């Protein structure tokens, strides 16, 4: 007897992530044991149990920080997507613009954000704006690169086929180029999403009144390493949630990419 689809699906998901979860559990257990055996000072490296206690102690203040950082990350990502796609569209259409901008974009990526962030604060103040700008700057590069590749890599013969039907440029764009580039855009957006929370945190280090970045900085100056780790874990969790959200969007926008071979009809 086969289990019902939902159960089978959940079993499949559990089976996929089980090894990773087991490894993580082993690492945490080993960490806890190490601290207890060697009696490491908590301000050097706190035990997982101590980090958990620190979390319970300060959980009341966390939602505010989480809201600030997640807002910055999501807004920054949205800006990166809008600006990235617009720039990619121009670069894909005008070869001259592509040749001029590509090297500049690569050079722009070699400037460390830690150097750029203070300059942005001078320009945009201490509010959320400079952090959103940092996230957008970090995220728009992978989006531009993969979207340009997607738009220019479309199958020429497919474009010709649609043209032979009498399609104008706009129809070619709509029926071939955009769907062709959609999966590429999402692989760029996935990378951008993975970096967006870290981008927001770096922005907050340079000066902020709320957010996980400033929470970590304050905890560090107070030698509360356990709280620093609470911040780190929250950053990781937030990144995972954002990444998963992009994955869901990608599946909705390009369902044909996720057709399983088991459904194949012969």
């Amino acid at each position, binding site marked *: 007897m086969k289990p019902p689809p939902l159960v089978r699906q959940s079993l499949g998901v559990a089976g996929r992530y089980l090894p990773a979860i087991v490894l993580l559990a082993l690492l945490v257990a080993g960490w806890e044991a190490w601290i207890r055996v060697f009696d490491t000072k908590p301000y050097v490296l706190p035990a997982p149990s101590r980090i958990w206690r620190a979390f319970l102690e300060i959980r009341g203040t966390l939602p505010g920080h989480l809201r600030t950082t997640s807002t910055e990350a999501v807004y920054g990502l949205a800006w990166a997507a809008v600006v990235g796609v617009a720039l990619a569209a121009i670069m894909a259409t005008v070869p001259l613009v592509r040749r001029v901008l590509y090297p500049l974009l690569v050079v722009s990526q070699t400037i460390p954000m830690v150097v750029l962030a203070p300059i942005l604060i001078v320009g945009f103040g201490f509010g959320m704006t400079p952090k959103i700008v940092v996230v957008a700057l970090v995220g728009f590069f992978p989006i531009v690169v993969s979207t340009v590749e997607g738009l220019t890599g479309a*199958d020429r*013969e*497919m474009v*010709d*086929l*649609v*043209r*032979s*039907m*009498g*399609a104008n440029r706009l*129809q070619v764009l709509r*029926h*071939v180029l955009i*769907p062709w580039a*959609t999966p590429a855009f999402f692989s760029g957006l996935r990378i951008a999403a993975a970096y967006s929370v870290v981008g927001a945190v770096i922005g907050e280090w340079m000066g902020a009144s709320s957010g996980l970045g400033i929470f970590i900085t304050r905890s560090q100056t107070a030698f509360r390493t356990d709280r620093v780790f609470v911040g780190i874990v929250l950053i990781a969790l937030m990144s995972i949630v954002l990444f998963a959200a992009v994955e869901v969007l990608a599946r909705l926008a*390009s369902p*044909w990419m996720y*057709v399983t071979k088991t*459904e*194949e*009809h*012969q």
Partner: protein
Amino acid sequence: MTGGGIDVHGLRHTFSGAAGDVQALDGVDLAVPGGTFATVVGPSGCGKSTLLRILAGLLIPGAGEATIDGETVIGAPGRSAYMPQKDLLLPWRRALANATLGAEVAGISHAEARQRARALFEPFGLAGFEKAWPSQLSGGMRQRLALLRTFLLPAGALLLDEPFGALDAITRREMHRWLQDVWLADRRTVLLITHDVEEALFLSDTVSVMSPRPGKMVAHVPVPFARPREGSIVTSPDFVALKAKLLAALDAAGTG
């Protein structure tokens, strides 16, 4: 729907590339009366596909005239139903939506296009696969879907570039009988390109032979067999004799 005739006069084309110029067509003449099935056979690389791309309005030739139903098609896509060698189904569209692509481009109402497409899934042997993604279809089904999409285009002339080239011999023979049936049902003008002489004879009213590059027409052979033709016709003495004649013309073109 009876289609308009295809007329080609003195078509010449040369491709210029980094490796030098390649003359693909050298004065091609061809006349396909409306509502008939014509085939061009020729060796690989003789410029057959170039001829079809010009007729589809995708490629502007160096010289010459090409009209469908009396209207020029030079640089004017959208006047014929063109089917390239590859099926080129759009992977992001399910089978039914792939079939209605041409209608959508032509601005025909969505509901009407879907209704017409749905009605053709049965005769094209695709019933029940309306919602399948192209990646879920077999090679033969993909090819039939590409043909269905071509048949649905609101054009009087069909241009088919080796539509069965990628299929195995058995599926191919099946597709020949089936294409004859669907073509007899609406009698549009067809210009088929192939290098398979048997396919050409089984399906066509006339077969034209093209020389190797630079391509030009070297023989026009009428095919007198009554329709509908049975699959067994390919072993009849008359068919075999005509096949021998065509192969001889191809050989003569190759050495000449």
